[in-house]
């Protein structure tokens, strides 16, 4: 080995504390990079394989009623490959606990077996169903501990049907098992899917030889929009409710979002960590180069070129990068298997493909090398300026100027001597000071993120269900009904308030932009819905206007005052142009709101409603469970509880991120202090000779760190605030809008966490100061 490289290795060994602490940051960055990327690809692959294996639909159509013969005719539409009609409806399920409300979606399966959306049988052979049995979806069966041969009792049209579970299977269509967009979270024991024979479904639902859903696969994905247009025309007379592409289907779009989030994190976090590592490397190397001034002079005197010497020090940074890469990548690969498994298990995807993608390893190494070489060159660039002859002479004294604060006489005079020194020390090495403070500010900001998430998640629900939508229950009818039904409802339940609601899926269009959403009609003087514009002012619905949620305004690229087209699927009703009279806040779900009367007149039918919103202390679920024409009763309290449970699992992730912030904070402070000590060993030695003891010096350094930490926290606050906005932005999706919450609590806790990490690093450097040999330091002309 070249002797210069021997020197490099010994140099690393000598500064192993610093070397390791930066290497850990790089390793964490790469571990996350590899882990998240590989995991997201694995999930993607698993989902694709699952979709292929079960021949998932490309298009899903919901309509009022279509005869079987008409379904067959759809095959003649160009682009259509296969079609399959089915009957699908949600019904309550009778369970032992009278309090508990469980619903189940009954889906018919053709006698000849499914062509599209085939069930996936993880164990056992496919089972045929007749009029006495059904196949249950796996997640639900497991969550409720239902075994083969058990009997379950759905209420269908007011009648109990006892059916035997003859099979348990999975479906690619319901990887993420959620009742509808409003639920947001899968609650596996409250909602399930049951596959029954077509004959049984049609007879109990009163749909002889007819269907209310059509599944379609395409020959060519590219022409999907053309095909959808043709399907729309062909199906108009059957009362099309909604035509959904696979990508917009609930389960698939939630999966996509999860994967996207993972992908986003896989680039944001590593780059942030590498940036911090780069900052530390720059400071560390510029210090090493300054310390090695004379050695560099000797090397040059011996005939080493600038390039040789620069490369020598840059290799130090590169070694950090390589060591970090090796550990990070190994860690990432080792963890990617289990993490993919966790996700795949969580998502209930039966295809586990825990592959390792080597391209990410190369990318990771390339990325790190670039970062490290760049920061190495930047840190060691002073090597170029060292003239061998100059380096042999003692350095010219640093120009000692008065600092600004000293000119403010009355303040300066009040400071004790040691504080004066502390402040001068900080101000005289401005560049180092700025870099360190920025590094610590970043640590602080990283600590803000998980704390913000912890606040925002529950707040999202509290705001949505206590401020914006104040009803206790939402009742959905099985079909649109006349407003008179309110009178019947009032007889059935004790409600302090009740309000009619009309909810219909429509496609909203603005030029190229379109989005199918639930449009909700509520009375103008609604007591349950509170609409607030983005500036948090209350706004009221107007006669002919439309309110859209923030997420929808982005999706359609429209603002207040613009017009949108509502495509009407209701037979006999025309598309309308309507003015957006307001953009309103809504954290969960994506919707549009209209005045109830206007919506009835323009889009549906006079006096029609599809449900009611209720404020009541009554147990509506129990009271309405036997009532005909009630499709579902949703309780805001249940939704909130389910979410709170989910939050417990979130806490783990929050702690994980805090730990990341801690690792960074530690590495930054530890290095800063070590560098500070080596930079000033001569100064400390002089102080020791003058009679300062170890503790005095340690105190002085501690004070410097305290000052820097305070300034860093002050800078970290706006930085954290903008990171919160960025986080809210990147986490928001069609279904969730993360509120930007800037609560003082978040910043206080982040400060406590930062100070804690600083304190740990501070303690770790204590030994270094106590072991500082001041006699050696004074003689340190030998390098």
């Amino acid at each position, binding site marked *: 080995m070249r002797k210069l490289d021997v020197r490099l290795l010994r140099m690393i060994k000598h500064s192993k504390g610093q070397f390791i602490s930066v290497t850990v940051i790089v390793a964490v960055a790469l571990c996350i990079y590899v882990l998240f990327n590989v995991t997201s690809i694995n999930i993607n692959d698993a989902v694709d394989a699952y979709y292929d294996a079960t021949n998932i639909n490309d298009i899903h159509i919901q309509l009022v009623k279509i005869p079987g013969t008409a379904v067959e005719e759809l095959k003649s539409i160009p682009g259509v490959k296969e079609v399959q009609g089915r009957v699908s409806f949600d019904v309550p399920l009778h369970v032992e606990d009278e309090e508990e409300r469980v619903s189940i979606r009954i889906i018919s399966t053709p006698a000849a077996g499914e062509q599209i959306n085939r069930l996936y049988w993880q164990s056992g052979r496919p089972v045929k169903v007749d009029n006495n049995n059904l196949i249950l979806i796996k997640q639900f069966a497991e969550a409720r501990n239902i075994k083969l041969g058990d009997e379950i009792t759905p209420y269908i049209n007011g009648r109990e049907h006892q059916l035997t579970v003859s099979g348990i299977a999975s479906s690619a269509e319901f990887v993420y098992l959620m009742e509808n967009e409003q639920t947001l979270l899968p609650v596996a024991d409250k909602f399930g899917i049951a596959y029954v024979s077509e004959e049984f479904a049609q007879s109990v639902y009163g749909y002889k030889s007819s269907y209310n859903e059509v599944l379609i696969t395409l020959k060519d994905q590219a022409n999907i929009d053309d095909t959808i247009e043709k399907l729309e025309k062909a199906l108009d007379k059957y009362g099309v409710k909604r035509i959904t592409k696979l990508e917009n289907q609930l389960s698939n779009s939630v999966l996509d979002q999860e994967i996207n989030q993972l992908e986003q994190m896989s680039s944001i976090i590593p780059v942030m960590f590498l940036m911090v590592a780069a900052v530390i490397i720059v400071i560390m190397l510029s210090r090493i180069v300054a310390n090695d001034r004379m*050695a560099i002079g000797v090397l040059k005197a*011996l*005939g*080493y*070129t600038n390039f040789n010497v620069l490369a020598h020090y840059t290799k130090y940074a590169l070694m950090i990068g390589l060591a970090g890469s090796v550990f990070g990548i190994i860690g990432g690969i080792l963890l990617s298997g289990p993490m993919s498994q966790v996700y795949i298990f969580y998502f209930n995807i039966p295809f586990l493909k825990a592959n390792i993608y080597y391209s990410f390893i190369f990318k990771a190494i390339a990325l790190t090398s670039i970062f490290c070489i760049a920061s190495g060159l930047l840190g060691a660039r002073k090597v170029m300026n060292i003239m061998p002859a100059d380096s042999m002479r003692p350095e*010219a*004294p640093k120009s000692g100027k008065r600092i600004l604060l000293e000119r403010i006489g009355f303040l300066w005079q009040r400071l004790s001597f040691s504080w004066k020194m502390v402040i001068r020390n900080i101000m005289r090495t401005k560049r180092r000071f700025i870099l360190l403070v920025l590094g610590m500010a970043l640590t602080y900001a990283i600590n803000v993120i998980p704390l913000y998430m912890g606040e925002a998640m529950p707040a999202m629900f509290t705001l949505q269900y206590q401020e914006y939508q104040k009803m206790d229950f939402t009742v959905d009818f099985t079909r649109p009904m006349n407003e008179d039904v309110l009178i019947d409802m009032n007889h059935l339940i004790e409600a302090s308030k009740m309000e009619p609601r009309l909810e219909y899926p429509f496609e909203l269009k603005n030029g190229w932009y379109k989005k199918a959403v639930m449009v909700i009609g509520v009375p103008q003087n609604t007591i349950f819905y509170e609409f607030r514009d983005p500036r948090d002012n209350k706004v009221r619905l107007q006669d002919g206007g439309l309110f859209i949620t923030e997420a929808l305004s982005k999706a359609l690229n429209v603002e207040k005052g613009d017009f949108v087209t509502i495509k009407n699927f209701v037979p006999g009703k025309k598309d309308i142009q309507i003015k957006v009279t307001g953009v309103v806040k809504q954290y969960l779900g994506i919707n549009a709101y209209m005045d109830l009367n206007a919506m009835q007149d323009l889009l549906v039918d006079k006096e029609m409603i599809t449900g009611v919103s209720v404020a009541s202390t009554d147990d509506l679920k129990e009271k309405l469970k036997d009532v005909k024409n009630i499709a579902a009763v949703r309780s805001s309290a249940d939704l909130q509880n389910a979410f709170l449970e989910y939050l417990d699992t979130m806490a783990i992730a929050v702690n994980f991120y805090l730990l990341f912030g801690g690792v960074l904070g530690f590495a930054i402070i530890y290095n800063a202090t070590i560098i500070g000590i080596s930079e000033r060993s001569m100064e400390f030695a002089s102080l020791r000779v003058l009679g300062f003891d170890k503790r005095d010096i340690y105190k002085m350094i501690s004070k410097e760190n305290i000052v820097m930490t305070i300034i860093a926290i002050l800078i970290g606050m706006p930085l954290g605030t903008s990171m919160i906005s960025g986080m809210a932005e990147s986490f928001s999706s069609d279904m969730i809008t993360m509120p930007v919450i800037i609560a003082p609590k978040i910043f206080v806790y982040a400060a406590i966490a930062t100070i804690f990490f600083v304190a740990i690093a501070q303690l770790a450097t204590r030994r270094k100061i106590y072991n500082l040999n001041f006699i050696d330091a004074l003689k340190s002309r030998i390098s």
Partner: protein
Amino acid sequence: MQQNILMQIENLSKTYQMGEVAVKALEETSFELFEGEFVVILGPSGSGKSTLLNILGGMDLPTEGRVLVKGEEITKYNDRKLTAYRRDRVGFVFQFYNLMANLTAKENVELATEMCKNALKIDEVMAAVGLEERKDHFPSQMSGGEQQRVAIARAVAKNPLLLLCDEPTGALDFKTGLLTLSLLHKINRDFNKTVVIITHNAAIGDMADRVIKMRSGKIIEIKENANPIPPERIEW
């Protein structure tokens, strides 16, 4: 005796900017160095002798004047050529040895020879300076005299035209200093290297072929020693 000229130094001047003060270190200096010569440059501190040495060694450039080595003007060299000159032609010995603290004695020598074309055999050089036994020790495990011998070995092993020594005995006690001088003397005779020593110690001048006396950046006297005495007999 007919001597070949190794270096011609013509009208060298050097001005330093030290912080906010300009220091004239060297003024209009001219002389010649011959092959195989043992030269002592004598002067008090601040006389410009270190500056002169640095310029001769290609470590620094003069403000004015020129230096020719075997007819080639090194003061015209660019940085790369100057580095090559230091690498292949010059060996340095510093007052404070300036060894790499984290390399052993032998590694310190190898650090210098690795990049030279016609380096001497390391083991031979280590034997010549009497350090075969100590070659795997780190500088911190050696005495000052031993460290200086490593530094000399490092300079000699490159097989340079010229050995430049900056106060080689300055940090050593009398006895060790004499040993170092006789080692340099031996190298001058045995390896036939031109040796230039700068020192403020007038006694060392007695062993030189020529003594160049400097004061305040100027040469005040060049004295030839008809009968240089062996270093063992020097006293101070």
